């Protein structure tokens, strides 16, 4: 399966984002209607929820909706309010010894991946992020040195809230510190369970378990895979080896002999690296964010792409997942 990965830079919403959206929209439209139109909230409900929980994001939201054609369905989809349920794999960890960085593997279907790193300056703050749902964030960093990453929380519970990629977008657009990001996660409802790991320029870090039906749990854990403490969904755990991955990360983070280079390379090896692409599930990339230096690195076996806010060249890379 070949995928074209793109690094795209566009400071204000414009033709690049528009053509990106136009490419994605037919598939997302089908996905949005997957459970029938009435399973998704109405436009007014979406807009009202955004006003209540993500008000600073509204002007940008309206701009993107217009660029996306302005239809009722596109606007509702882009709000990511109570979206069609979805899940991913993912392993993520924070390294805080000689230097601090956030590293993660994104495990998902290559057919459903947007494969786009977006550098934007939509609200006066530069943001580099791996895109999902056209403007949401799987993982990313802003120029003030805040990095975030998400992993599915391994629970089937659904609730009333936002798709977590949009909450991460909000954090990167408007927060500078781990404490601020934690506050956002505390007050903005998520429609599913997610594990969010945050690291800021000063090395402050947190892993936050968010759930639609439980109080959030904020901890200084340095790792997250796809369960929240105990395993809620054994079938999912077995399919994604969440416990094994967490074990490896935990052991290596505590190993005094582990170097940061070796720690990074483990993300390209089993069990952290998932090879199951043929079955529709595998590691699609490894990203590392060094917020103090503003460096983003994306790794694949045999290939590495690095970007900074000052030096962000656009690029397209053909990737093959076997």
């Amino acid at each position, binding site marked *: 399966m070949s995928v074209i990965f793109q690094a795209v830079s566009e400071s204000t919403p414009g033709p690049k984002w528009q053509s990106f959206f136009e490419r994605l929209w037919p598939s997302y439209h089908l*996905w949005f209607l997957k459970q029938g139109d009435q399973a998704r909230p109405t436009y007014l409900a979406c807009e009202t929820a955004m006003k209540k929980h993500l008000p600073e994001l509204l002007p940008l939201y309206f701009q993107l909706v217009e660029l996306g054609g302005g239809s009722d369905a596109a*606007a509702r989809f882009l709000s990511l309010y109570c979206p069609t349920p979805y899940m991913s794999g993912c392993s993520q960890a924070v390294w805080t010894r000689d230097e601090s960085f956030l590293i993660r593997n994104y495990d998902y279907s290559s057919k*459903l991946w947007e494969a786009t790193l977006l550098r934007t300056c939509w609200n006066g703050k530069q943001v580099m992020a791996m895109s999902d749902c056209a403007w949401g964030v799987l993982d990313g960093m802003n120029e003030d040195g805040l990095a975030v990453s998400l992993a599915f929380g391994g629970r089937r519970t659904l609730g009333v809230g936002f798709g977590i990629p949009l909450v991460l977008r909000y954090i990167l657009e408007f927060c500078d510190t781990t404490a601020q990001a934690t506050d956002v996660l505390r007050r903005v409802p998520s429609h599913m369970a997610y594990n969010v790991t945050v690291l800021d320029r000063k090395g402050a870090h947190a892993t936050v378990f968010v759930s639609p039906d439980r109080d959030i749990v904020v901890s200084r854990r340095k790792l997250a895979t796809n369960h929240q403490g105990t395993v809620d969904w054994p079938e999912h755990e077995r399919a994604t080896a969440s416990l094994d991955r967490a074990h490896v990360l935990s052991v290596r983070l505590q190993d005094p002999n582990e170097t940061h280079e070796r720690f990074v390379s483990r993300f390209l090896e089993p069990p952290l690296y998932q090879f199951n692409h043929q079955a529709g599930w595998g590691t699609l990339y490894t990203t590392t964010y060094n917020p103090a230096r503003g460096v983003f690195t994306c790794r694949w076996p045999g290939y590495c792409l690095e970007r900074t806010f000052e030096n962000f060249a656009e690029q397209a890379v053909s990737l093959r997942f076997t």
Partner: protein
Amino acid sequence: MTTNTKRVLKGIPDIRLHFHRNETPIYFISATNFNLMGIDEWVRNFRYITYIDCFDGQHPHVISPSEIPHRPFTSIEDVNNYLLEHKEVVDLIRRRSKNGKGGKAVFLFFDEQTEALCEQLGLEVCFPSAQLRTEIDNKIMTTRIGDRAGIASVPNVLAKVESYSQMRELTGHLGNDLVIQTAFGDSGHTTFFISSEEDWNKHADEIVADPEVKIMKRIRCRGAAQEACVTRHGTIVGPMMTELVGFKELTPYRGGWCGNEVLAESFSQDVRAKACDMTFRFGEELRKMGYRGYFELDFLRDLDSDELYLGEVNPRVTGASAMTNLAAFAHADAPLFLFHLLEWADVDFELDVAELNARWSDPDNIDSWGQLVIKHTADTVELITETPQTGIWKLHENGNVEYLRMQTHRRTVESEQEAFFLRIAKPGDYKYEGADLGILITPGRLMTEDFELNDRAKAWTKGIIGEFKSRAIQPAEAEVATEIAEVANFKMM
């Protein structure tokens, strides 16, 4: 509705001027604009937000958002709530808002959810609360309001009934043939004719389930309707109308409403005067309950005794409102609905209601019009491929009908051989038993003296229905959705 709230409007010319200069956005939100056709010409900044665009984009003040998939509508309230949450409607209301206020909204039907959505959009609902309307709409309550106002209903008993024998004990004085109505719902579906225990058994479940029902003596009667408006200066009463009911050419429902006529000579002067007085008194009683604005009363005229009885009340705009609001007297003064809007305008006014009522009830001021509400009457389902357009049509002597020109209401219809037709079903819709096809409005009578559909009404109906082309549904049309659903397996848990 203008920015000048201190001025007092003194009489009809001031009121007309006030609305011609109105700056507040006002919306009629409904399935179609039929009920309030023509009001936009009296009220500046009045817009119709409709689910169906009967005018194919040609009406300057009708806005129909592009359709998005939705759950099946079960009521007009559902349609309205869908419209209020649609992005194109939200954007429109925001774009036209003034000083942070969305304006004012009127509906045919609305519920508590509609009220909440309007609040979110900054729209003021120009009607008494849904709760009060529901309370008044209850047929048991209607009877009691009528009793308080000294307006007779058909001899009746209001009671909770448990069994046939108990019901008979309670109603011995009403005779053998009875009519039982439950509290809510379209009369066509909630009225039961009981002459025997066998009749009772057919409907016993529905009757016994109600906390209280209305049991009436069965009379031979004709229906009549009258619209009115409760204002702070008294109740303004419109003309008396006949009702077209159950004609098989127009509706598949026995007892189903299918049109109205407004004309001076259909009732005696005595009956009309009595109806006016009853409607006025009913309106004044409603006012005491905090109700204000538009309502309609149904009357039952006993053919044997010529008594006039209260039927039911519709605390709202109705299917007969286009008759009332486009009548000659309405053009001479102002449509009745304007007085409804005036009640919600941020302005004080003075009005001699008695003088207005006297003028409106003068037979010289009532011109004769009728409307036919045309449904698909056969038990078939077909896909509509062509429809007659909304506008002015001509009926030729050979029974053919011909489209003359686009029009937004009936005013330019010149003779009984011309009519205004409002298309409801559009190409791509399904024609099924009971589906609304359209509404035809034409000068003159539609019924004979015996309350049968006259030849001209039959010719118009046949001619218009003949303009609807349709075809049978092909089996493949049902499979497309399945295919789409299967390829849409995207990011789905």
